[in-house]
């Protein structure tokens, strides 16, 4: 019972932060989903492409992201994602929330 709870909390913590991290990568410039996954993994955030893709679709449908098709020499055409203006605003508000939370959490845990 306790084990399930821990898992649940961990995944809930991860969920919100994951979206923030993805937006952070895309706001730097056009990005390909599997490259995003690689960058997250290298930074220590484990993410499956099966979770990443639905998130991107949801963000796109919310109007925060757009994509364009890019022909690829090695395989099928790829979807490259960029951020829209509303996406940028959304990201900035998330960023300020994150900073507040991070400093708060930092303060609390350091005490």
């Amino acid at each position, binding site marked *: 019972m306790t084990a399930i709870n821990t898992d649940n909390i961990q995944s809930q913590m991860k969920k919100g932060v994951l979206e923030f991290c993805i937006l952070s990568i895309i706001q730097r410039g056009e990005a390909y989903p599997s490259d995003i996954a690689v960058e997250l993994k290298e930074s220590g955030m484990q993410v499956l492409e099966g979770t990443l893709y*639905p998130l991107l679709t949801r963000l796109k449908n919310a109007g925060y992201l757009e994509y364009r098709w890019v022909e690829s020499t090695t*395989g*099928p055409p790829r979807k490259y994602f960029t951020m829209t203006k509303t996406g940028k605003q959304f990201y900035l508000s998330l960023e300020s929330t994150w900073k507040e939370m991070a400093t708060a959490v930092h303060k609390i845990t350091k005490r």
Partner: protein
Amino acid sequence: MDKILQINYQNRTLHIEESAYQAFQTYESELQTFFLKEEEGAETFADLQNRMAEILEQKNAMGTIMIKDIQELIATIGRPTDFDENYKAETAQEKKAPVEEKKKLYRNKKDKVIAGVCSGISNYFAIDPIAVRLIFVLFSICNIATLFEFPIGIAAYIILWVLLQPRLLEINVTQKLFRNPKDKVLGGVCSGLAHFFNTETWFVRLLFAAPFIIEALTNHNNIFVHHNFISTSFYSFTFICYATLWFIVPLAKSSTDYMLLKREPINISTIQNSTAMSKVLQTSKSGMNAFLKVVAYIILAIIIVVAVPTLFGVLTACFFSYNVLDIILFSTFNKVLGIISICTFIGLPVLGLIIWGIRKIGGYKSPHKGLRIAFSTAWVLGFISIFILGFNLMKEMNTYANVVERMPINITSDTLFIQSLNPNVEINENVVFNWNPMNHLMERKEKTNEIHAVHLNYEQSEDSNFVVKI
């Protein structure tokens, strides 16, 4: 060592081990059922399929895809249970649900043309959606065409669209009508129908081709001049039937479609058999080719209907009017040559067209070696005989043309009267022309030849006497 399969995934040709392919198929269907539960999921699933194709192609470039590669692919993308902790519980609930739940009418989200109303109805009655769609379309067309009043069919559709809840419905029929891309002449309609009604393909094709064949055999006149009402309506009926089925019935694309077409149970071992289909699917892609093919076949049908009876008529005419041959070709050797030439240049094309038609309806693909040899020898023989015949005729013509005979006529008066024995004589300005086309041009009597076609020319003679020159 595992069997290696060549598959076509997302338009990519891949080489994959049998066990790896099985694993991949189950994994893909797992993802599909997970993502297609939501409206947005279809796009995500398509993206993932695209991504998997990319990964598989990279692996394929390094050699045959093995089970290890599929495991790596699953590790990067993840299983549905990894995305959602509650997934297992949900599926368990869904599995229980249909037993308790009363059967209700829904719109089908999974298999739809407009809103999935027809598909939902067919699912409710457990029949092929095509049947419901066909009835609906025909009803709507009749409704609009005849009554020209309130479109009941369309209105009913819209009402059901609004009222019914959308839901992903599983296929609950063991067989569906598909067009068969593997065995087709035009659109694979006949083959699909044959599988559906469990008969032979050639039989269905013959049914569709029958009006054209009957027309070709019975009508010796030009089809454009003599329109037989019954046969014309038969044509158009079969033609419209075929065209409608072509547009409404979907082409069997996936291996699942294929299983439903062939009434085979869907499992992995049957899916493997369908890997050969990938090639066929690639060729059936181009719509332009199909269109050109249709045009070609229509032209061909006209040619067969018009040309075959005509050529056949010429052939029979040649044999029955033996007298014509008698006049032109004097020796028996030349007659034999003449008959061979006629057979080759008129009879062979007719025979060829008939054999081609039979083979096409029968669905024979491979060229027949014996037939090819027989036809080429016949052609060679025909050419040889016509050359010899031509040479002989030229020789004969030359000898006969050079005979000139002078016959002086002793007449004391200075005027020559010419009187014809035949009353039907046409007299032109300076030519007397005795032309009797229905009789033979020449008759051979015991020792003399009687010529019926006489050509008289008046010219000034060299001296003052009258001379007949033959």
